[in-house]
């Protein structure tokens, strides 16, 4: 980063001489250094989202540090990066979903909510008095057009994906996702695969204890976004651990 320290990295409202917006790049960096990874896969019958979470404290009440949220009945959002920022984006997403419903009397489509949240996050890169969000999110939805998976990053970019990863180990996760049979995969099949990826990309040296959270919105869940059943999660985690041990 050649221009660091030259004064062009202090504000989102000023480009550097070589055409970069450093604050946005720093925000992306904040996502990657925050420690968690979120991955998502669009399957033939729905979308599966997964996040890894380090256990902050042994005394913390189990299951109270959620990283996958409902935006509406048919939309889930998995987040990585600065949690407080992610909560802000989540609230905006819920507001957009409610507002769309009251205006059009129908559930907000996945691409619309992704576009609106991208616009919201982009807005935070345009004014000197705002700080970009230090969070990248994955949005899994199921509407009339079927299942969709989108990502939104701090710059306000949003793409639709067959499979996506955001956060610390996104590169390693993506290379593993590419190996999955994405055009034929079902949600049931995808769940243990995502668990395996989570275990393989986890950096054991840095922190030993972590847990994974998996949700889906698919035909099996009645096209509603829910966390996967407890027994399915247990067997997926077991598969992930077994794969990790076999690898070692």
């Amino acid at each position: 980063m050649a221009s660091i320290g030259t004064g062009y990295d202090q504000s989102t409202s000023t480009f550097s001489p070589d055409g970069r917006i450093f604050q946005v790049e720093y925000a992306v960096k904040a996502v990657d250094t925050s420690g968690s990874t979120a991955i998502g896969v669009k399957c033939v019958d729905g979308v599966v989202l997964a996040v890894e979470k380090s256990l902050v404290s042994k005394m913390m009440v189990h299951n109270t540090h959620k990283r996958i949220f409902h935006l509406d009945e048919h939309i889930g959002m998995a987040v990585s990066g600065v949690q407080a920022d992610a909560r802000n984006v989540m609230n905006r997403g819920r507001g957009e979903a409610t507002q769309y419903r009251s205006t059009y009397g129908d559930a907000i489509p996945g691409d619309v909510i992704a576009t609106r949240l991208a616009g919201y996050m982009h807005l935070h890169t345009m004014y000197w008095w705002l700080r970009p969000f230090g969070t990248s999110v994955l949005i899994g939805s199921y509407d009339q057009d079927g299942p969709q998976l989108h990502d939104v990053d701090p710059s306000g970019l949003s793409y639709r994906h067959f499979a996506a990863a955001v956060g610390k180990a996104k590169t390693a996760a993506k290379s593993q996702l590419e190996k999955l049979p994405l055009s034929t995969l079902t949600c049931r099949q995808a769940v243990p695969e995502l668990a395996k990826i989570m275990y393989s990309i986890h950096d054991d040296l840095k922190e030993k204890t972590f847990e994974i959270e998996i949700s889906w919105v698919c035909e099996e869940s009645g096209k509603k976004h829910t966390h996967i059943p407890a027994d399915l999660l247990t067997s997926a985690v077991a598969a992930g651990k077994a794969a990790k041990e076999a690898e070692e």
Partner: protein
Amino acid sequence: MFAQPADDPRKNTLRPMVTGTSAIGIKYKGGVMVATDTIACYGNWIRYKDVQRIHAVSKDTLIAMNGEMSDYQKVLQILEQKRLAEYCVDDGSTQTSAELHSYLTRVMYQKRCKFDPLWNMLLVGGFRNGEAYLGYTDLYGTHFEDNFLATGLGMYMALPLMRNQWTPEMSEADARALLQMALKICYYRDTRASNKVQIARVDASGVHIDEPITLQGEWNHARFVEGGAKSGDGGW
């Protein structure tokens, strides 16, 4: 007729236009059952001949309406918004019928205080943990619970019947029979009631809204046929 004089804020309340008539409901052993007919009238004209006036608003709560149809649709929207907000909280708890009822009365009362009432009388029925719930609220925000309730003209015709015949030990079949009789009486005497009716219930297995059925009226009673002619006043 629709124009509101801008200088008089007191006249911003419209009269009800398209209306549904009585809704009735009773508790029985193991559940709660409500019933309405399926028409909506514009004045004396049957504007809609097949409308649903009972809806599930959560997995164990339903509401039945009387009054303005458009206001009722607004009520459903408000409750749906509430339900989705609760779903997003995702803490495993869902609102009880009593809580939904209380919320609904606050909505109705607030609207009345703005002189813009939701022109409805509503029944809230629910069943959870072995307890049946049946509540009433209306365009003023009035709010109470009872073992049997009726709205609109049903208050005059169905309520006395239910006061005579209701017992806490009623079975589902007894409840259905009583509601059908009450609906039939309403159909005989309420000009804006229909014999195409819909019955719904909430029990331990959740909300069940039956398909509409058609009640058979008995129009050949001797008093029906002769009464008017004999007494000369057309009444019976």
